[in-house]
């Protein structure tokens, strides 16, 4: 049944990312999970059916959080509040994490190259770093779609208008890193 297969694929992917990323030493929270899903779908064409929209806090789709919470309900992950500091959440493996990875093994195998690449390139990055990078990707894609002239400075200026707390240097660094990762090439440039 299509609707159920798609659900198990998403639950499996959330479980897989949690297994691979929850022990990197960096907090894997809800924001980070949102941005991983964004990059997987929009850069690496993993079909998840999400509809992302740009906000000042980067690309966002509430369905990702519904799926994440449902995965917790099913026992695929644990989501624990972080007491101090950011006030966010920590997503950890749970008793059924491996079971849901196995359940969606065909889907995960089909997209294993993409999933492993994203884990390798972005694994261990903080929510702040992921948010900045996913915002740059969103804007780059929008510029491409509209056939606007793309330059490092233009994108950086646009990002800073949305996110004034980031310095131009930070944005440039993130842009350069994405360039080295060949993310922009994947977007069709």
């Amino acid at each position: 049944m299509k609707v159920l297969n798609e659900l198990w694929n998403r639950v499996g992917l959330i479980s897989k990312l949690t297994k691979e990323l929850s022990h990197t030493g960096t907090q894997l929270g809800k924001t980070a999970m949102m941005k991983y899903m964004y990059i997987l779908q929009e850069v690496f064409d993993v079909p998840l059916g999400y509809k992302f929209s740009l906000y000042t806090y980067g690309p966002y789709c509430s369905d990702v959080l519904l799926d994440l919470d449902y995965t917790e309900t099913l026992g695929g992950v644990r989501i624990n509040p972080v007491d101090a500091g950011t006030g966010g959440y920590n997503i950890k493996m749970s008793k059924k994490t491996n079971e849901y990875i196995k359940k969606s093994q065909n889907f995960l195998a089909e997209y294993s190259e993409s999933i492993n690449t994203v884990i390798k390139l972005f694994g261990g990055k903080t929510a702040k770093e992921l948010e900045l990078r996913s915002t740059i990707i969103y804007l780059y894609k929008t510029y491409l779609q509209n056939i606007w002239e793309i330059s490092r400075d233009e994108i950086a200026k646009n990002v800073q208008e949305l996110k004034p707390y980031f310095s131009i240097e930070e944005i440039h660094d993130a842009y350069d890193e994405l360039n080295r990762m060949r993310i922009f090439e994947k977007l069709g440039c």
Partner: protein
Amino acid sequence: MNVYESRDVIYGFITFDDWEREVINHPVFQRLRRIKQLSLTDMVYPGANHTRFEHSLGVMHLATLFFDNILIKRRQFLEKELRFDEAGLRRDRRILRFAALLHDIGHSPFSHAGEELMPYIPKGHPKYEEGKDKRFSHEDYSIAIIKAFFRDIIEEHEENENYNIKVEDITALLGDETVKPKRSLIWKNIISSQLDADRADYLLRDSTHLGIRYGIYDKDRLVNTVSIAKDQETYGTNLVVEEGGWHVAESLVIARYQMFTQVYFHKTRRAYDHHIESAIKAILQENEKSGFFPLPDSEENLKKYIDYDDWKIYGLIKEGMGGDDGEVILKRIHDKCVYETGEVPDEDELKRFEDVWNEFRDEISFDDSPDKSWYKTGKEDILILCNPNNEDEQLKPLSSISSIVRAMQPIKQKRLYARNGESGALRKKIRAYLEGKK
């Protein structure tokens, strides 16, 4: 500028000026009087006959209350950290009001029931992506309609000499990806987010018209405590609720949860969503050949699109153009739910559901789940601003403060339906089948 007032069932009075009145009086905006807010929900709740027209006025009013309160509470934050000045804020207030007023202008007949009848994005369109079957959404129609029919009214109005507003400033807040996103994107949260004026209005309005209390929350307290802040975790700015108002944020989430189970995902209401969608499809197959609404790609096609409203569809259904599903609506002989999971099904329930679907596939008329519905519900983690305007100001997710919200789970209920008249027998067969499996 003259100021006008309109009576409103939620706010008492809604005020607007000459400039906004011209938008409201435009025939394309008046069309919203002929699109019911909740489609055929009146088949279940007879009072559900309110329209997108009054909701649109309501969202404009409530969005303004949010904006004005944020200015009272966070002017220093806006000026020092986001570098707004008085003129910029005055201009953005105007833009926000227009965006809120026009946010639903592109709805198809019977609101979200027409969403699946939007055409696929064709090759060559800026939003087209190879290998992805993406449809246009009502937001795409809203954006195209605003640009095609409201540009002159908004841009050429004499008052605009003070603001220099382009319609693209407005569509940017509605998700227009052909506009470079600017600082004002912060206000998009008031139009569309977990804490937006859209849902804050429709929960109250739907409850009031339906004669129920599930969607009622303390609106005044919400307005009084809504704010914006920087998220230390991500360096993003976000719409938040001050710590003193977290209980109203909690009640907003509960209201949405209750309205979802009692109204938006009501099993009979969902049956009528299915029937009206199929009836409109039959009409479009006759009128447009494609079976889809006209593309939002030219003024001519948009005129054809906005010619479709509830009245036209009702008329065509009455003339017999709605096919079998049109007849179902006329006679109120809707399909019946024959099998459903719990609201938050576990793995075994989902397996059972799939098993039943496989076994009785030929006798099932359609299946349903919240994934197919525009309305969804879950934890809805609103951010709470602790110690506002202090050095140790901090954001916390509502679910880390509210034990009720923390315990909430996303509803993923699945249902199977059968034709009226066949449902009783099929329900028994399913029961016997599952008994035999034990």
